[in-house]
């Protein structure tokens, strides 16, 4: 075997270059770290996470997990993370709806619908998000009437400058039992769907429509079982009623949450609208015409021909919009929503542990983003063109 001089071996050189690059990068990181530590030591400060177990001694206005001022900084940061996750998940769900509707509207042949969607996209995409958030918060939500003069909507829901109140379900003692029934019912639906698909594949014919009734079988059984065995319904409706200074009962969206949600959903929705429009337009018109000439209905054309191809174009940029929404939620601090960034800011101001807290924040946002993109990539792999 002919051994080449190693410095002419392209593969070796490539590995060498990468190794050198990695070493330099590591040295640079080490330098930055020691520089920080040395400069802090000069002022008698150290880097470490010991402070995390100290009591936070500040309160947080809005929290989905129990929190008191006597809890630790760690707990406070967790509250912030949960708040960020809640706004991100709700926001991503709603913005998808808004974006798809606006994107389809952009393609509508109805002049008014089309122009309205175009105006929405044009205005929202071309103004900074922070200004929109300020607008929603100071310009819209805080301008709503006070609690005593609340705008009442059917439901009853109330719009006030203290928040938006709406009826909500409250868990009763039988909630836990009912939860099991629901899980069993959902599981049966998934199972039947798999079964049908296997049957369809074998017979290469669509299953008769009335077979779909099988889906209802187990849920019906579970409802009967629940009604027979459980004394009361799992959820009790609570209706917001005015008591004292504020409304009690029902679901309350704080002004901060509502403004942030509106702002993020509408802003990201405008971008998603354009992505959806691009995706649909990327499928050539000839395919629609071909599908129609084969006798497929409009719905079938959309479902079987256009969407599968459009999704390939839509999913990757959609992922980055989802990530944007989650990251943009850190602007919440401007309007007082206690998200991760806001609480972390308070913590580092109280403890002086700027570097440690920034690391925590970066890691949190990074893992959030990575998890989102992993999920979206899994979905993308399912819809993308299968190459043979």
């Amino acid at each position, binding site marked *: 075997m002919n051994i080449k001089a190693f410095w002419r071996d392209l593969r070796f050189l490539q590995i060498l*270059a990468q190794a050198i690059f990695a070493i*330099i990068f590591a040295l640079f990181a080490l330098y930055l770290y020691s520089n920080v530590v*040395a400069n802090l030591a000069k002022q008698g*400060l150290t880097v470490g996470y010991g402070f995390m177990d100290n009591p936070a001694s500040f309160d947080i206005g809005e929290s989905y997990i129990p929190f008191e001022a006597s809890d630790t900084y760690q707990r406070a940061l967790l509250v912030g993370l949960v708040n960020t996750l809640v706004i991100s998940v709700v926001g991503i769900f709603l913005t998808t709806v808004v974006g798809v509707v606006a994107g389809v509207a952009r393609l509508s042949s109805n002049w008014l619908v089309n122009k309205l969607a175009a105006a929405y996209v044009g205005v929202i995409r071309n103004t900074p998000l922070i200004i929109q958030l300020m607008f929603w918060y100071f310009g819209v939500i805080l301008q709503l009437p006070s609690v005593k003069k609340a705008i009442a909507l059917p439901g009853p829901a109330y719009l006030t400058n203290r928040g938006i109140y709406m009826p909500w379900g409250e868990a009763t003692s039988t909630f836990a039992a009912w939860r099991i029934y629901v899980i069993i019912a959902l599981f049966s639906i998934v199972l039947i769907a798999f079964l049908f698909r296997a049957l369809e594949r074998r017979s290469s014919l669509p299953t008769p429509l009335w077979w779909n009734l099988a889906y209802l079988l187990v849920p019906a059984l579970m409802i009967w079982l629940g009604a027979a065995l459980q004394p009361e319904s799992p959820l009790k409706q609570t209706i917001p009623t005015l008591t004292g200074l504020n409304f009690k009962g029902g679901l309350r969206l704080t002004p901060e949450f509502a403004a942030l949600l509106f702002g993020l959903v509408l802003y990201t929705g405008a971008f998603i609208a354009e992505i959806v429009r691009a995706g649909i337009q990327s499928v050539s018109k000839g395919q629609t015409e071909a599908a129609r000439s084969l006798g497929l209905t409009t719905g079938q054309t959309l479902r079987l021909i256009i969407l599968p191809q459009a999704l390939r174009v839509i999913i990757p940029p959609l992922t980055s919009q989802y990530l944007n929404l989650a990251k943009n939620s850190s602007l919440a601090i*401007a309007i007082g929503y206690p998200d991760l960034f806001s609480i972390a800011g308070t913590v580092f*101001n109280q403890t002086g542990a700027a570097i440690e807290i920034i690391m925590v924040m970066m890691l949190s946002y990074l893992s959030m983003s990575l998890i989102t993109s992993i999920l979206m990539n899994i979905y993308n792999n399912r819809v993308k063109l299968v190459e043979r």
Partner: protein
Amino acid sequence: MNRKLFALFSLLVIVSVALAACGAPPPSGGGAPVTVKETVIVTVEVPGEAPTAAPPPAAGGERLKTVLDRGKVICGVHGSFQGFGFVDSAGAWSGFDVEFCRAWAAALFNDANAVEFRGLSAQARFTAVQTGEVDVLSRNSTWTWTRDAELGLTFGPVTFYDGQAIMAKKEIVTDAAGGLKALEGAQVCVQSGTTTELNLADQFRAAGVSYEPVVFEDQTAAFQAYDEGRCDAITSDRSQLATQGQAVLKNFADHVILDVVMSKEPLGPAVAQGDDKWADAVHWVVYGMIQAEELGITSANVDSFLTSEDPVVRRLLGVEGELGAKLGLSNDFIYRVIKLVGNYGEVYERNLGPFNLARGQNDLWTNGGLMYAPPFR
């Protein structure tokens, strides 16, 4: 990526890293001017912070020299707090805290305008001092144990004795002396990153009154939200409630400041720990202004005091003695401060007089207040 591009890219990175390494000294020892690089927060150049021979901790003197060489003081202040630190639409800075920055500039350079102001948020202010981005912080910052011990700061003489208070709408609180009980279940606007936020939690917990905080990063945003009716009450230092209340709120008369004193808030300048010489310079300028008021020396009559026979006055104004030089300043530094900026009382009247903020604890000790300068001798 195409191979050539990659090679080019790696070369670029290597060169830039090498350059960065050349420009920076070894982490612990002395060396050329230090470039403090922090990956995330700020990239700040601290020109010549650590000259060669000086051992890093408690060295002293470098900052004073740096400032003198630079020819101006970099002063961290509030940017949107009328009465204390405010920059107007023409870019002119004004306010009580701002005037102290001018005083240090006057002491060092005989020019009250040799200041570079940095408007800092409540959250960024201490990091700015730690990293040396500002020479001195004069931004209504409360002197606390934690900040002194954990944040690596040295606080100066208290320039303003403040206390936290809470303001509510008159329709909710009818009796200012009634205490916090009237605020049961209230929503309270507060600024993040302040001692106020902590005291709020402590005081309501101690009084057993439930509340819900709404936390803003910006004080003005908190006041606006309160004005729009988002909160039932707003809490801050008494001075802030009075000044901001008059400056921001639509109708200040509709609001009442409760008679509850929720905390002690001694406000004063802060410098980075470990440079006593610079800290001394900062401190004695403030003391000089207090002493001058006690002696009745004002910017208008200071020249006539130069011929005074009183040894205290003569020492203070640098007519005799070498006390200024011992601090590394000129002997007449107090004279410059009084001439160009004024004494403590003048600064107070000029900035806080328009807000009808009574001197109270901030009066001279001779008038029953807490303002007291150590002897100039």
